[in-house]
């Protein structure tokens, strides 16, 4: 497969493994922020190729995992309304809320539909004029521009029954919060697709304030091994900086059109992250000018009281302080088929990846 096989080349992966082995002297903890990286690392068995001095830890970069139970509870409450159709990316439907999931609501008759794009959700709205169609807007800077584009398009098209329920978040506040909280990290593998939108400037504070490097990485084994090599080199030479390994996709300035679209539709708000708590300016709220498409503003619903699960250490895992295997529920009462915490639900969650590839 062109453009993929080149980045799964065994010889090149082995070359970087060899180089890392040669230069690595200090014990380092490298956090991959993005869930896509977590999956690749486990799926290709990369930890097996690294020296004992290099430890990989997973961060808070799975959007499903960091989303609050309260958000799910509200989505569940919406789904119970007679005149509402919920449209969502597939990962979200099995995430446990306090007492239910969207999957369970669907089984009891709620109209919950999985879509691959917000455009599909808008089509559903167009074809169901008498229903309120709510799209669950989840994800970081990667998916937020698509939601923004959808809202813009809905307004232009006069699609009055289309709403977005935003849980969109931005990455840098979480990356800084982890360091502020004293989590032991020596360098970040930066999120490739988030950076495609934002460019590299959003990470510039990290080397400056915290003397810690960020290497923006692609998702194939060669990308990740090269990024680890670049980070280890930075750490060994004591030269923390922001570098882009994923140059075939990420431009230093990012995608300016997408950034403008985000600015047009969203404004920052304080938001709650599993494992990190409330971080200021970390969530994206739909601006007042577009509130006619904001379900939080336009659709009133009574939401049950949020109950957090007992014994689940998703929060500590998302902070990189514990590994999935440290959790008493892991693989016992919490499995992908019957998950307790969100990290076990999402295919990008570190518990899910660990369960599948590294038990």
């Amino acid at each position, binding site marked *: 497969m062109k453009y993929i096989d080149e980045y799964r080349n065994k010889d090149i992966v082995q070359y970087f493994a060899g180089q890392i082995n040669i230069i690595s002297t200090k014990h380092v903890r490298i956090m991959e922020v993005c869930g896509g990286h977590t999956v690749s690392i486990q799926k290709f068995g990369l930890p097996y*190729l690294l020296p004992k001095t290099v430890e990989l830890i997973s961060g808070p970069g799975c959007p499903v995992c960091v989303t609050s139970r309260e958000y799910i509870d509200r989505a569940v409450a919406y789904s119970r309304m007679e005149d509402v159709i919920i449209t969502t990316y597939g990962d979200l439907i099995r995430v446990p809320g306090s007492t239910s999931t969207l999957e369970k609501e669907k089984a009891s008759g709620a109209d919950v539909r999985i879509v691959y794009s917000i455009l599909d959700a808008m089509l559903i709205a167009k074809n169901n004029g008498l229903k309120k169609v709510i799209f669950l807007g989840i994800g970081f800077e990667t998916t937020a521009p698509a939601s923004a584009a959808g809202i813009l398009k809905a307004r232009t098209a006069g699609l009055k029954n289309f709403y977005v329920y935003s849980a969109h978040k931005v990455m840098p506040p979480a990356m800084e919060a982890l360091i502020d909280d004293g989590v032991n990290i020596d360098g970040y593998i930066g999120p490739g697709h988030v950076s495609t939108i934002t460019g590299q400037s959003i990470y510039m504070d990290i080397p400056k304030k915290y003397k810690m490097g960020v290497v923006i990485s692609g998702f194939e084994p060669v990308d990740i091994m090269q990024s680890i090599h670049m980070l280890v080199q930075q750490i060994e030479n004591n030269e923390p900086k922001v570098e882009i390994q994923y140059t075939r996709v990420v431009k230093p300035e990012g995608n300016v059109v997408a950034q403008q679209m985000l600015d047009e539709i969203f404004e920052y708000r304080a938001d709650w992250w599993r494992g990190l708590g409330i971080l200021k300016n970390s969530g994206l709220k739909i601006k007042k000018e577009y509130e006619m498409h904001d379900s939080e503003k336009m659709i009133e619903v009574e939401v049950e009281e949020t109950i957090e699960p007992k014994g689940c250490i998703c929060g500590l895992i998302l902070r990189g302080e514990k590994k999935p295997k440290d959790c008493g529920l892991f693989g016992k009462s919490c499995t992908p088929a019957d998950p307790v915490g969100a990290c076990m639900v999402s295919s990008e969650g570190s518990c899910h990846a660990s*369960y599948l590839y*590294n038990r």
Partner: protein
Amino acid sequence: MTMTTMTTMTTPTTIKNNPDKILLGHGSGGKLSHDLIDNLFTKYFNNPILNQQSDSAVIPMSSNHIAYTTDSFVVDPIFFPGGNIGNLAVAGTVNDLAVSGAEPKYLSAGFIIEEGFSFSQLEQIVISMAVDAKKAGVTIVTGDTKVVDKGKCDKIFINTSGIGILDKKNVGISSGSAIKPGDKIIINGSIGDHGMSVMAARNELNIQTHITSDCACLNHLIADALKSSKLIKFMRDATRGGLGTVISELVKGSDYGIQIDEDKLVIHESVRGLCELLGFDPLYVANEGKVVIIVGSEDAEKVLSKIKESPLGKEASIIGSISEDHKGKAWLNTGVGGKRVIEMLSGQQLPRIC
């Protein structure tokens, strides 16, 4: 569409007085039911046992071991590149018998049809079943038809059960009790084709590919393999849940480990591409014409070359082996030189692929 245009457009062989659509009355047991049986099922499945139309098929058996299996088919869409629900219904049951070491002989076919279903499509499905059954050397000896109200089932569901004759020497194959470290693991070709062809055929994805389902009856290939070696210790068709599920089910609780070499797996370019796009792991994508065979290492090459003689085994390869270490676990040696566990798939990767 009038009856005549329908018949000339789609199925020139259709006989007179066939309806355009299936009605509730076709499942009533009355005149319409009899017409359907006479004009369609016995016409294509034609054989002396079925033609008796008695309450049970009465069949002569010569063996004291029979293999007996059943499977229901609810694939969506019912027609996909490389086959339809009828091909699946025959191949699925034939293969379940064959991998148990049995010689498939007789099938039953139960149809649950949604009111209003197109007769010509039903006829195409029945013809596919008849053709596949003939190729596989099995006889469809009994059947049933029910028609349900519109909306109470999705177009058509089919159940087939099958009986095969099991030679005493093959009785242990379905349990795999003779597997031991050193044995080799063979698969008769590429993985993931069926699941991805069905996925691509679903309209909502708006994807065009050239992926064709691998749906096929494997009993002749398996019979040849069994004739070529006495050391075949286990066989299973890698259907729902794919190769990964077969491997992890087999190794669970066993006193051996399994290792699979990723670079020995054949995964067609288009299948890999679609899997990448949708985030699926081809290891867990369904096949409908693939058998995993575990054979003593001294006979592995012999069995492999026998399988390769069949058109259904051209891409066969030895993909791994049974190991002494990491007991109870299956490991994948990844293409880039890493290692990871092969776990059982949890939840649904793809709904309604068979």
